[in-house]
């Protein structure tokens, strides 16, 4: 293989946005201020389930500064019900109509001259509720006598289907061992430090709605938002701001748009709605899946994995906003890095009185990693095979790529054995095993975990709907675009269609352009385009952006460069193929005196039409839309879901923990992550993503959960109860090392790396805690491993 010489790709180039942010000059959604702007606040339901008999807003309207108070029915004049990606008739309104179905559901919204006045007014709204029985668990919702959450449905099971790939019955009947586990993945959420928000301004004279926000997808499916706001698709302008973290939770934030949009139409003034922390925790799109797994792994006598059964009850909360898309996501890699030829994957999607699921980093595949790796550890225990060697024995081998998995998704490339070898070599395993032995003599319990997991990247969108035979929204496109302009004086401007979400899209795109032109990326200016000026862009999500921007930025660079060469060739009286670009100068190869700077060519291109070839348009810019590099359709019978998430990274994590059996406290002593996400675009930024993801994984494993009591009351609606990891909850040093198996399908061979840390760490830590508690015979089948749970497991294990 020819290794390209690279100047900027692969280097830890500094981030573009940092200086302004560090100086306090970054503009986030709450920093937008418009003349005459009003502020919104929302009154929320204290009940998990109740009928709304009446709402009296008259006193609220008398509060000084209040301009409008909207209830659900009144808002419908201005906005439609919320967009939903499900085929079932589950209707959700941003402000509830007639009935509330979770604690925190919006009941009324107020616009006032200050947020203080708006919140005062909320306190003056009187609502007469008629409480209904709250369904706080799927078990309750499944009871035949349970009240139906939606009269439009037959029951609280909103969707149910079992898919089988390969010879599942054969695999299980021929197995020497069937390893079984009941596993639980708990409800947790993204919890960005910045909540979601929007500033909406409607101009009735031009019928144009302008919306500033911290969302994504405004250059991908802007018509979803236009439809919601009841404006024509070409009359909505969505303007991005810097985003203070999302981790998937801000893809659509349609509740914010709906509330700000309805209020700007109602008042004729710009309206800002910024969620407070309780709004965001209790009622936005923060929450990931909430699953009960019934799992079985069929294993041959020699330890070969033959088949996998995953039957899942998933608690969706009160609505079905994104349908079963996160199980579509999970079907990209349910069999992990292993050669498992047969798969049964069944889901039962249940509605309960909780906030509906949104998206969170991992998007459903992280739970698949948890289930599979817990089963593999269990198999190693039951068969008395070393856990690392059992994995190695079943790994897909390097020569088997591209590898078609049972579901039809393809893995592009990988070398899992090499990653495992590196992990075993660098984790000081022998040292920690000795320590484990020594400390057990002192009554201390340390454990070493291991997990080998996939990180699928670059989604194609079919996984949002292929569970349906008749999908409501069969998107098959996830494009990403970049516009590159060189102005008349040779200044480079890069226009992105995606937002800055805390990742580094502009830095990565500038690295690629710099590589193509041989210029310093720091000289390239960046523009984040709004929805009326940006080209197609699905934006961040599914670890796709580095892959997709590499393609888009390289494509746009090449288009601009070709035009530049055609013009320069004309002026230098040479053939374009005789030219080369070095140090910002276009030269005739072998003739150093025949050269023009990029600025010289650009000036001619912009202003001297008569000097450039007659068939060239003036100007020097190109937009390139990079479509998904390898996506195929699912088969009609859904026995083959096609290639939909084929750029597949891999990681092996080895954490070391100490567990105090008296207090149940878990301390992470050491953490190694060996990562292979293809060619590393920017080592420092990738390390940041991996370490940050691992911290979220530590939160998932040890701290974070949504707790609803038996009445459906949310007990964790603040950061005092919903615990995020602090600087003392993460280990002093997370070591991240990389193997690089380039993808054959992407530019530069890059693969996604944004979710990997988060997708692997929880199960690696479960493995470590189980190892520490081996003397007690404890199995870790659920998270988070809080002190209470650990102590109760140890208690339960005593004879």
């Amino acid at each position, binding site marked *: 293989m020819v290794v390209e010489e690279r100047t900027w790709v692969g280097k830890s180039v500094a981030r573009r946005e940092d200086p302004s942010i560090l*100086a306090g000059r970054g503009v986030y959604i709450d920093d937008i201020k418009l003349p005459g702007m009003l502020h919104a606040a929302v009154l929320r339901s204290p009940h998990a389930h109740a009928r709304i008999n009446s709402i009296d807003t008259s006193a609220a309207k008398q509060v000084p500064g209040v301009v409008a108070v909207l209830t659900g029915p009144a808002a419908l004049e201005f906005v439609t019900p919320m967009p939903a990606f499900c085929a079932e008739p589950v209707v959700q309104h941003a402000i509830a109509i007639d009935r509330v179905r979770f604690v925190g559901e919006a009941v009324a919204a107020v616009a006032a001259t200050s947020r203080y006045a708006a919140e005062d007014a909320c306190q003056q709204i009187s609502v007469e509720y008629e409480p209904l029985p709250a369904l706080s668990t799927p078990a309750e919702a499944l009871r035949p006598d349970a009240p139906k959450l939606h009269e439009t449905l037959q029951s609280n099971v909103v969707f149910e289907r079992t898919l089988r790939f390969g010879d599942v019955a054969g695999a299980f009947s021929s197995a020497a061992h069937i390893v079984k586990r009941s596993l639980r993945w708990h409800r947790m959420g993204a919890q960005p430090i910045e909540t979601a928000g929007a500033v909406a301004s409607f101009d009735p004279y031009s019928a144009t709605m302008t919306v500033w926000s911290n969302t994504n997808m405004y250059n991908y499916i802007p018509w979803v938002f236009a439809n919601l706001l009841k404006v024509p698709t070409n009359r909505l302008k969505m303007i991005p701001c810097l985003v203070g973290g999302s981790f998937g939770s801000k893809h659509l934030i349609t509740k914010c748009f709906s509330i700000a949009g309805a209020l700007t139409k109602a008042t004729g003034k710009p309206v800002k709605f910024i969620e407070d922390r309780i709004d965001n925790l209790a009622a936005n799109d923060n929450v990931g899946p909430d699953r009960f797994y019934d799992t079985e792994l069929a294993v041959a006598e020699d330890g070969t994995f033959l088949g996998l059964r995953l039957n899942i009850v998933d608690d969706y909360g009160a609505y079905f906003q994104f349908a079963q898309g996160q199980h579509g996501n999970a079907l990209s890699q349910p069999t992990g890095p292993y050669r498992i030829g047969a798969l049964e994957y069944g889901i039962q999607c249940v509605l309960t009185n909780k906030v509906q699921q949104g998206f969170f980093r991992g998007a459903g595949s992280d739970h698949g990693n948890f289930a599979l790796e817990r089963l593999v550890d269990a198999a190693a225990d039951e068969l008395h095979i070393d856990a690392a060697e059992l994995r190695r024995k079943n790994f897909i081998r390097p020569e088997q790529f591209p590898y078609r998995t049972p579901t039809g998704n393809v893995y592009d490339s990988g070398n899992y054995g090499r990653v495992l070898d590196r992990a075993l070599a660098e984790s000081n395993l022998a040292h920690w095993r000795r320590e484990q032995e020594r400390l057990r003599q002192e009554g201390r319990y340390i454990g070493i975990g291991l997990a080998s997991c996939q990180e699928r990247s670059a989604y194609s969108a079919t996984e949002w709907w292929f569970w349906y035979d008749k999908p409501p929204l069969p998107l098959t496109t996830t494009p990403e675009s970049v516009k590159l302009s060189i102005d008349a004086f040779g200044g480079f401007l890069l226009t992105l269609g995606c937002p800055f979400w805390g990742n580094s899209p502009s830095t990565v795109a500038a690295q690629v352009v710099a590589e193509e032109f041989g210029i310093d990326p720091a000289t390239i200016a960046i523009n984040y385009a709004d929805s009326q000026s940006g080209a197609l862009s699905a934006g961040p999500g599914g670890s796709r952006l580095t892959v997709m921007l590499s393609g888009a930025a390289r494509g746009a660079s090449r288009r601009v460069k070709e035009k530049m060469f055609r013009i320069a060739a004309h002026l230098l009286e040479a053939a374009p193929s005789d030219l080369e670009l070095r140090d910002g100068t276009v030269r005739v190869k072998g003739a150093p005196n025949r050269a023009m700077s990029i600025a010289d060519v650009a000036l001619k291109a912009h202003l001297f039409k008569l000097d450039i070839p007659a068939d060239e348009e003036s100007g020097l810019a190109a937009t390139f839309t990079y479509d998904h590099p390898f996506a195929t359709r699912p088969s009609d019978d859904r026995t083959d879901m096609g290639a939909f998430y084929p750029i597949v990274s891999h990681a092996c994590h080895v954490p070391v923990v100490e567990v105090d059996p008296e207090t149940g406290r878990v301390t992470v002593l050491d953490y190694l992550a060996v990562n292979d996400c293809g060619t590393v675009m920017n080592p420092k930024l990738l390390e940041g993503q991996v370490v940050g993801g691992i911290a979220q994984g530590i939160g998932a494993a040890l701290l974070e959960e949504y707790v609803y009591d038996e009445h459906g009351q949310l007990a964790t609606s603040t950061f005092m109860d919903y615990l995020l990891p602090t*600087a*003392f909850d993460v280990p002093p040093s997370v070591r991240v090392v990389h193997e690089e198996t380039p993808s054959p399908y992407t530019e530069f061979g890059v693969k996604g790396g944004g979710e990997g840390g988060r997708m692997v760490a929880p199960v690696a830590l479960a493995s470590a805690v189980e190892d520490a508690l081996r003397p007690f015979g404890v199995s870790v089948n659920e998270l988070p491993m809080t002190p209470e749970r650990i102590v109760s497991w140890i208690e339960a294990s005593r004879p």
Partner: protein
Amino acid sequence: MTEMKPARKVALRVIVNGEEHEALVEPRRLLVDLLRDDLGLTGTHIGCEHGVCGACTVLLDGQTVRSCLLFAVQAKGHSVMTVEGLADADGSLHPIQAAFMAEHGLQCGFCTPGFLMTAYELLRANPAPDEEEIRAAISGNLCRCTGYQNIVRSVRAAAETMAAAAATPAVPA
């Protein structure tokens, strides 16, 4: 039902980043709203409004406070420093800011102003903190992006830069 009346406003004078400001505020107005809304200093961020996340951290007479938990009137006659006060008058970044950039100590940047102010307070009191002392100082601030590792590195790097600068004889003004 209580009748809502506009609250009596209180006049106050406060020094922010060395500059004197006058404002007329409701007694219940939060310090963070005074800074962001009335004075236009939007570098200070609101993360949780219940004193846990630390994104709104500013210095009040040199001590870190949560500006979402203080009333503006509590700052009356006092001196406040925000993230906007860190860089030099010529715009060049403070060594702590520069270190956060060099060590990739921020991703989304939303919590960053709070960490910068916390680090500023730490390094003034303890110019050479060890790992444990840095973690203790920042343990009241939440970051959801970085996992803290690069924040710790940034603070350590800033301490080293500042120590080196302090060891160099200053040019008389």
